[in-house]
């Protein structure tokens, strides 16, 4: 095992896959010369050259469109969007094109492309730079949604994403890039659609991913001091979703809180709560609760931002409501 940072796990996965397969290449704003805004592509241009590691203009719609077009020719592009906020500029290419084409064209084609982008807010980036919008894409059939929380998951899932024959939206997190974790020296891949129980517990299930996974683990520590054992389940991929692991965890603990950074209204939590109550209505000891962002554009002022965004304490508060 080697300890590495989240951003380094991104780099390693791309590096290994580019070395393995000539057709893999990467492009995006500032990915080449300076190695990425969050250092995630550092060294790649030096190793693979400017043909396979390309700096682009600021033109997100075209960046994603070019990924689609080059995938049609058999290339395996990785398009980096500097952040998910700018991916919104490319929504038409992602939703109307990448997600639709295989099905709409009767299965004649594969689109082996990866769109990478960090999602999420925090640190006062204000309304236009604080989007945790994975639910939008989970709501769109035809695109895989991968959203890792640790360096280990990043590396294994990104390698799988690059080898996948379907379009994959790979959502990283700005705040996690510098976090550290253990990553095996030897090669490994992680399958899509397999959730990871990041902490076992018997009293309540917390479902959380990305930055919120870490808030959930903090919450579990705080609750443990109160004698409440929370199980923390990280779905890791939202599409495909490992619903089996989630439903069997909740069947055991009989209580569930979904913690997500995105807005609460029609968020991922709404979908999970709906499905879980369909299957477990008579087994639940309490209503399924959600911890999410307040339904307002993210405000700049530090105190308002703190009030708007979910965190460990807010998870604890919700859980105390259903366990005491």
């Amino acid at each position, binding site marked *: 095992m080697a300890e590495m940072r989240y951003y380094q796990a991104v780099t390693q996965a791309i590096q290994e896959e580019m070395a393995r397969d000539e057709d893999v290449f990467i492009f995006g*704003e*500032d990915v080449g*010369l*300076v190695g990425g*805004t969050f250092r995630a592509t550092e060294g790649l241009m030096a190793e693979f050259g400017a043909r396979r590691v390309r*700096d*682009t*203009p*600021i*033109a997100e*719609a*075209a960046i994603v469109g070019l990924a689609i077009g080059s995938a049609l020719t058999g290339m395996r592009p990785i398009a980096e969007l500097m952040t998910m*906020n*700018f991916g*919104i*500029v490319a929504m038409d290419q992602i939703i109307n094109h990448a997600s639709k084409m295989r099905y709409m064209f009767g299965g004649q084609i594969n689109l082996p492309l990866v769109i990478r982008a960090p999602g999420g807010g925090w*640190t*006062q*980036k*204000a*309304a*236009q*730079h604080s989007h945790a919008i994975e639910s939008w894409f989970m709501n769109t059939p035809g695109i895989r949604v991968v959203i890792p929380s640790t360096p280990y998951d990043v590396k294994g899932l990104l390698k799988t994403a690059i080898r996948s024959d379907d379009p994959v939206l790979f959502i990283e997190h700005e705040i996690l890039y510098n976090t550290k974790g253990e990553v095996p020296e030897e090669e490994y891949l992680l399958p899509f659609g397999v959730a990871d129980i990041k902490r076992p517990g018997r009293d309540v299930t917390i479902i959380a991913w990305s930055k919120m996974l870490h808030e959930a683990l903090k919450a579990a520590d705080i609750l443990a001091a109160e004698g409440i054992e929370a199980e923390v389940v990280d779905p890791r991929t939202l599409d495909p979703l490992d619903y089996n692991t989630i439903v069997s965890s909740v069947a055991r603990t009989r209580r569930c809180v979904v913690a997500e950074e995105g807005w609460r209204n029609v968020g991922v939590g709404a979908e999970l709560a709906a499905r879980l109550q369909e299957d477990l209505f008579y087994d639940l000891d309490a209503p399924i609760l959600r911890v999410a962002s*307040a339904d*307002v*554009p993210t*405000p*700049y*002022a*530090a*105190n*308002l931002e703190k*009030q*708007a965004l979910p965190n460990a304490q807010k998870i604890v508060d919700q859980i105390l409501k259903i366990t005491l």
Partner: protein
Amino acid sequence: MAIPLADQLKMYKNMLLIRRFEEGVAEAYADGLIGGFTHLYIGQEAVAGGAIASLNHDDYAIGTYRVHAHALCRGTSPRRLMAELYGRTDGICKGKGGSMHFFDNEHYFMGGYGIVGGHLPIAAGLGLGIHMRSEDRVVMAFLGDGASNQGVFHESMNFAKLWDLPIIFVVENNFYGIATDVRVSSAFNEIHRKAQGYGMPGHVVNGMDVIAVREACDEVVSYVRQGSGPVLLEARCYRYQGHSMTDPARYRSQAEADLWRKRDPIPRLAKQLLAQDVEQERLDGFQTEVNEIVADSMQFAEASPRPGPEALYEDLYAENYGG
């Protein structure tokens, strides 16, 4: 050289104010009083300083996330801008917007926007509104070199010329979009000539020379005001600092940065003013004055209360229905 001395002095003072304000912002950011993304304008003062001076009070201006200067030049109170940066209730947007999102209705400053190119169709829409209402006003839209590669830039240019809307697109070409050199990102980097593709006049001006910017803008503003349709003006300039507070700008050579600093617009105008018999003491007096304004704005900001918890849900909709 038709710019009256009084106007030159005013532009001089504005440039000093911008620079001192930005230095104050950098200090407050280092002290943790300002957060988020903060993009400084130091080096580019002559562009906003000269261009906005050509506008009437009720013309519209609109810009990017690098807009402290533009709001100051429109006449927004430095106190309220600084309070915005501190995230306080007296901020121009009540602390909800921060550095990238200044907005001042009273001074027709139609905002700072964080999505590159996102404000350009809005600028065209301001022009459309003026046109529909048959008003005697113009729109001045500021953007960067990098933004000129976004799809919406081209869509907006086409609309503007197609309907001959009263817009001046001011491209602040500082040669970089974050770390990317304009030569790497733009197939054709004579940006002012991108206007030709839409049958629109395009000009270039030295953006380190406030008098040149002012003269060019006086001309294009009066052209646009006459109803002749939109114009694009490229102002070549340089930002001395990194792209934002967290960017050390290692992608630029020291020699390049030094070269541009020699063209600094503030001493340049000072020299011209001295040659017109303005006394050095007068210029020094301006410096003292802006130092006081900025110090006062920082004190004001620090004393202003943080928004209360009720503010979180305020101002989302004009009409509320409960529930």
